[in-house]
């Protein structure tokens, strides 16, 4: 089913889909098709990434998940686990540095690809985010850190929940100044 997203993207090239001038039930149908195609595509990318990151072929390759609602700080995997990895793939043919923002419930330390700790910023999610995500989750905080990605490649960062001690000191808690 690896070409299913391509088929549905093809359907969505109709001029009404591009401009948003379709009827609501047609819009819902486009959304459903794209969602199905995207789910298939995510599975495929997860398989590929799992094979690429695997260092030892005798153990099963890991499964990767994608969080569709990261823009509203919703990601069950990062909220419900004390330890997880973040893999960022860069599709551009030059090095890219960007900031990753993940929803969390407490403080985490992030270890970069070189094994060194990465500077992070832990802050409360905005009121706008709390309002917009409604029943999709309740992570009260988000963790920000910078990632540097190679051209057409990926890097894996490791997150571990830290509870005081050395790991907690690596973090810089953000300062909030409420003016009004």
């Amino acid at each position, binding site marked *: 089913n690896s070409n299913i997203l391509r088929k549905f993207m093809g359907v969505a090239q109709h001029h009404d889909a591009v*401009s948003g001038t379709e009827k609501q039930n047609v819009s819902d149908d486009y959304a459903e098709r794209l969602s199905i195609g995207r789910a298939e595509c995510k599975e495929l990318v997860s398989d590929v990434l799992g094979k690429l990151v695997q260092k030892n072929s005798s153990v099963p390759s*890991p499964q990767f998940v994608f969080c569709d609602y990261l823009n509203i700080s919703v990601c069950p995997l990062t909220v419900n686990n004390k330890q997880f990895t973040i893999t960022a793939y860069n*599709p551009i043919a030059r090095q890219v540095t960007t900031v990753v923002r993940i929803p969390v419930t407490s403080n985490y330390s992030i270890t970069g690809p070189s094994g060194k700790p990465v500077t992070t910023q832990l802050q409360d999610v905005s009121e706008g985010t709390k309002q917009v995500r409604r029943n999709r989750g309740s992570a009260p905080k988000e963790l920000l850190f910078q990632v540097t990605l190679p051209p057409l490649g990926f890097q894996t960062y490791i997150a571990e929940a830290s509870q005081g001690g050395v790991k907690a000191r690596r973090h810089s808690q953000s300062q909030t*100044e409420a003016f009004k």
Partner: protein
Amino acid sequence: NADTTIENQFLSLTFDGSTGLLKSMTDKKSQKSTSVRQSFYWYTSSMGDLKSSQKSGAYIFRPLIQTPTDLFNGTSVGLTVIKGPVATEVRQQFQPWLSQVIRLYNNREFAEFEWTVGPIPIKDRVGKEIITRFDTDLQTNSTFYTDANGRQILQRIRDHRFDWQYNNTEPVSGNYYPINSRAFITDDKMQMTVMTDRSQGGSSMKDGSLEIMIHRRTLGDDHRGVGEPLNETGQFGDGLIVRGQHFVLFTSVDKAAAAHRLLGEELYMAPSLSFSQWVPDWA
């Protein structure tokens, strides 16, 4: 009531101490500043008038009144500032259904404006078309620029067409153009470029100003074929909430093209994130 300034290596943004609105923007490399008032406004969707029965809808943007209403409540947007080692952000609340976060990241040239809009209230039975607008003191001489499918940047001149004599019957929507990835205004020295995360429409209705439509909810069918108003009610039945981002560059004119071309590529092909519970042995 003191003004608040946030900055990184490239930009400095100042917010008005009493209103909390963006007040000025400085390019730290050239040390050039511009006053900027950024706020949100709404146009009333036309349901037809004596001049024409044309309604505003999915195909047609036709405001009833040519001056948009400010969504700033007139007192304060309740500015909250968060400073950290990775990013500095300010949070603004314009209406119960309209908020914005403005971020400056370390070593990134742009300011990120993340707006969350909706559900657009329609209890008053009035369709609304929401815009964000940047009003600067750049001397733009009726000229602004938008891109065509992210490729060629086209010059637009207010109330003017290059190919025919323009009879302006719709003062606002007649000056609206598609923005697929970026729009900018410029004078001889400085340029303000707004990169979008999706295709939108926009214009410059007065010199130094750039407006972009970010959300619409209309109550009439525009009779162009769709047969229904543009009034999606969404999962919860009360209307859609949209969240999107504008990436704003303020640079000298000679640096502007390189800045928006590189950023445009990064936005179009953004890194994809995936997560796993697996933690490798070599960790």
